[in-house]
């Protein structure tokens, strides 16, 4: 068994009927595999680096022509993966593409695993880990703002902010180490180390804060619909999603678990969630549903609190108001088709600053106003943060960044207690803060993490 550096192959476009389909090869034998099956039409044409060549795919066994198309060779190390890469554009027929793939595999190419092309790009140092993640997000982007956000990370705007932070920590560390290792008569103790640590910490915390807006741009605003049973939450959910996904019945308590759907409002995605109704004396299954509803509320960006506008507020409605007390919320007075018994201005409906919308989820009257309110909220939360980068940390990045702040906070705590931080411990904590930062960009990484990241990819990327 010779585990030589192998050449991988995969279909880079969806396996479906289409105008063209692209087969991608990467590895040391990419070019020789191409030459074995692809005959340029123009005699004597060679496969010059980054030059399109028209020709025919021929089965070398029997000389049968399988298809014709265009081949481009991109020589390493300047290619996507850092290895020799070949892209073969053929007719977009799954049958033809399968035949050509089988031909390549029979001649020694190995079918690529998920994300293996990008993994090779990372391993050869063409991309850092932040960029590799951005590639996956770019492909999955739901909205133009999500594309922008992923683009920013792919262009290293986030990597460079992180590098800036880690460089500033390294500078402090260098000063501390120099002081430790040289005779005291040669150097002064580094006086502003603690102040500088504080500055670096602020930058890191700003990056963590900015991560929230990035997530919203990437994954959408998390909007949770809550209300007491039978106020029309699911009707509203369906009206916003414009499907019949939530089962609507006249019986209270029909939705026991939550339902999710994505809607795009004004170019920004909303992850809409319909929940079980909040009531005073629930049966056990319902009680579990309510517990989940409260969890959903806690992690949402905005709450859509629904009330029956045709009836006075009751005890259950005030539970609903309590549940969203600490969250940004829109107050919806539903059932305007039946009547309006509730005053839209009433102080009983919670803080006056919250937008209040009367509508009929059933007729669709007033729905546009709600959409506009939500879109405005989205625009504000997805705005580029003051820190100056449109790209933001992913969830993995936030966890690591938070881990990196812990040792720095310890330094500041000791200093705040009026004690001097021994240089040796200062150095230890700084090193500990640097490790997770290096993990974010992939300068330091373990296999398991890589597997998890590249699992997300489709085959062929």
């Amino acid at each position, binding site marked *: 068994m*010779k*585990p*030589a*550096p*192998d050449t991988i192959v995969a279909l880079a476009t969806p396996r479906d009927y289409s105008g063209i389909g692209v087969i991608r090869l990467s*590895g040391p034998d990419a070019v020789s595999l191409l030459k074995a099956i692809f005959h340029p039409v123009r005699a004597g044409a060679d496969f010059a680096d980054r030059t399109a060549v028209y020709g025919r795919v021929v089965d070398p066994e029997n000389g049968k022509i399988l298809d014709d198309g265009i081949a481009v060779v991109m020589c390493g*190390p300047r290619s996507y993966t*850092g290895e020799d890469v070949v892209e073969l554009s053929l007719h977009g027929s799954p049958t033809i593409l399968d035949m050509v793939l089988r031909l390549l595999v029979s001649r020694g190419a190995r079918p690529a695993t998920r994300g293996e092309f990008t993994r*090779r790009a*990372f*391993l*050869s*140092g063409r991309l850092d880990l932040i960029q590799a993640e951005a590639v996956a997000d770019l492909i999955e982007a739901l909205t133009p703002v999500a594309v922008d956000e992923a683009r920013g990370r792919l262009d290293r705007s986030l990597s460079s902010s992180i590098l800036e932070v880690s460089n500033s920590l390294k500078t402090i560390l260098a000063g501390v*180490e120099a*002081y*430790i*290792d*040289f*005779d*005291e*008569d*040669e150097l002064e103790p580094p006086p502003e180390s603690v102040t500088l640590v504080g500055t670096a910490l602020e930058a890191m915390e700003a990056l963590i804060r900015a991560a929230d807006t990035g997530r919203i741009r990437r994954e959408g605003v998390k909007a949770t619909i809550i209300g007491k049973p039978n106020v029309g939450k699911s009707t509203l959910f369906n009206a916003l999603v414009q499907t019949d996904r939530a089962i609507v019945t006249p019986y209270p308590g029909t939705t026991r678990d939550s339902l999710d759907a994505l809607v795009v409002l004004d170019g920004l995605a909303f992850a809409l969630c319909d929940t079980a109704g909040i009531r005073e004396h629930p049966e056990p299954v319902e009680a579990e549903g309510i517990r989940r509803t409260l969890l959903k509320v806690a992690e949402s960006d905005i709450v859509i609190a629904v009330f029956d506008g045709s009836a006075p507020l009751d005890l259950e409605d005030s539970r609903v108001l309590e549940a969203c007390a600490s969250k940004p919320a829109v107050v919806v007075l539903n059932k305007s088709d039946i009547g309006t018994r509730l005053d839209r201005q009433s102080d009983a409906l919670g803080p006056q600053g919250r937008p209040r919308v009367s509508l009929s989820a059933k007729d669709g009257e007033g729905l546009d106003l709600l959409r506009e309110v939500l879109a405005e909220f989205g625009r504000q939360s997805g705005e580029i943060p003051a820190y100056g980068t449109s790209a933001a940390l992913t969830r993995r990045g936030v966890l690591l960044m938070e881990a990196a702040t812990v040792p720095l906070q310890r330094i500041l705590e000791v200093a705040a207690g009026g*004690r001097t931080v*021994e*240089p*040796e*411990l200062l*150095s*230890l904590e700084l090193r500990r803060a640097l490790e997770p930062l290096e993990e974010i960009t*992939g*300068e*330091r*990484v373990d*296999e398991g993490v*890589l597997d998890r990241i590249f699992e997300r990819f489709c085959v062929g990327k």
Partner: protein
Amino acid sequence: MRWHDVDVIVVGAGHAGCEAALVCARTGLSVWMYTLNADSIGLMPCNPSIGGLGKGHLVKEIDALGGEMGRAADAACIQYKLLGTSKGPAVQGSRMQCDRLAYSLAMKSAVERESNLLIRQEMVTGLLLDGSRCVGIRERSGYDVRSRALILATGTFLDGVVHVGSVSYGAGRAGEFPARELALQLRDLGFPWGRFKTGTPARLKGSTVDFSVMKEDPGDEVMRPFSLRTARIAGPRRSCFRTNTSRQTHEIVSRNLLRSPLYSGTITGTPARYCPSLEDKIARFPQRETHPVVVEPEGLHTSEVYLKGLGNSLPPEIQFDLIRSVPGLEEAEIVRPAYAIEYDFIRPTCLKVSLETKAYEGLYFAGQINGTSGYEEAAAQGLLAGINAVMSIRGRDPFVLDRSEAYMGVMVDDLVTRGVEEPYRMFTSRAEYRLLLREDNAAERLLAKGRDLGLIPDVLAQETQARLQEVESALQTLDRTRIRHGEEVNELLASRGASEIREAMPAAKFLKRPEISAKDLVNLGILPKDLSPNAVREIEIRVKYDGYIERQKRESERFRKTEEVLIPKDLDYDSVQGLSRELRERLRSISPRSLGQASRVPGITPAAISALMVRLRSK
């Protein structure tokens, strides 16, 4: 076995050579140690002190493995100081001012005590080679001596050139012959070599120095021996004296910068950035108005003093002026002028971790030849090269210390994995597990290994073990005993400006308070009165930094796991996918023995390591 005259030949009798020769002789091998002058064995050609930050650690480690340096320093000690006490627990390092002559004599008599060790005063002009095996040396006279192992510890002698002002001449040290033929042979054999530069300041006639205007530094009251075999240091003491360069000094140096071979272009060897000459200090830091100068005693029976901080290679008449511009040195007379020296070093990446060359079996390099600087660094390598020559002759596996076990391990790993770009000095910041590699626990870390190698007598091992046991039981006592919130304790706290305690607490917790020291617990009668100062220090560190130490222990265990993933010697790096041609080449030339070592090869990315890991796993 092939015919040979002696088991081991050691070329050079400095700090590396002596340790190498001694360790081989002590394990029963016959040794010839070559020197150009049998009167300058174990010489301190630069400052008359042993130890310091990072370096004191090395001396303690050498001692725990049965080396001689610590014992010789103790015998010659005329002042002791513990450095870095305010910097943290692990970086604290001992430094001794030594009587230069006494040190040299202590080392010479240690060498002479070994019955199967011969000091031979002759120049070695060539290596005898048999294929890829080194089989002996040729003396200048043409006489060949055959050996089973050869250790080169040639210091600054390989094609050494001394510079003073515009004058330069071949010399191994001021006044000694250089080893030119040997240097040329090593170059011809294809060893990758380079030129380094070092230097030493002037020595003055003591009676011409006005110490009264300088600040006296008598050192610490308590003198702690380096060696486990030294009961106590009793000899007379001498002080150091501090002064500073003046504005005039800086003017003299700036005006004459181009007359220094360092700036006229004569010297091309690379100097160490961390140990700049006076010319460099003044040219590179023009904003600094003054630099410290320390006048150190050279010994008890000589008045000569060493001028730390004034190393230079300016012409003698300028040296005279600049020295006299320093407060207290207005009337000073120079006994030995300062000089710079350039010499060949061999790039240590051509060595295995055993310090044996990859190219020739039986050939070992130790000390400055490997691009290091410093007595302690040299001695540590001499000891390790000697031990490994013994291991190889006895047909055993090489003796290797890893980075979490000893500063020696850190140094050797740095040398053979990363190589050197400037003279290499031991810094505590080079150690990832600094909190674990302390002076106070050197014996705990290494003594058992020294005993297993047959370098530490059983009696000493047992005695030391008993002392280590004292520390362990003291730590248990601290966990068990509760401090009562009585008057005595609260008065003590009040006198330190600390808040009182309101209820009883475990003594260990009490000791964690920043204002309390382990000595206080001795005074309170909780710890025994007869604990050694080293034990008290260890107890204090282990209690106060408990959390940090535990964390580093866990990290070092993780580290050791990748050290244990061995890379087969015959691994074909072409079969590792995802490695660039350049990285393949680099790994091939270093041929790391473990995945851990591979990860430290310069330029190797974590990505490259995971590629390597995949390849190793697929076997």
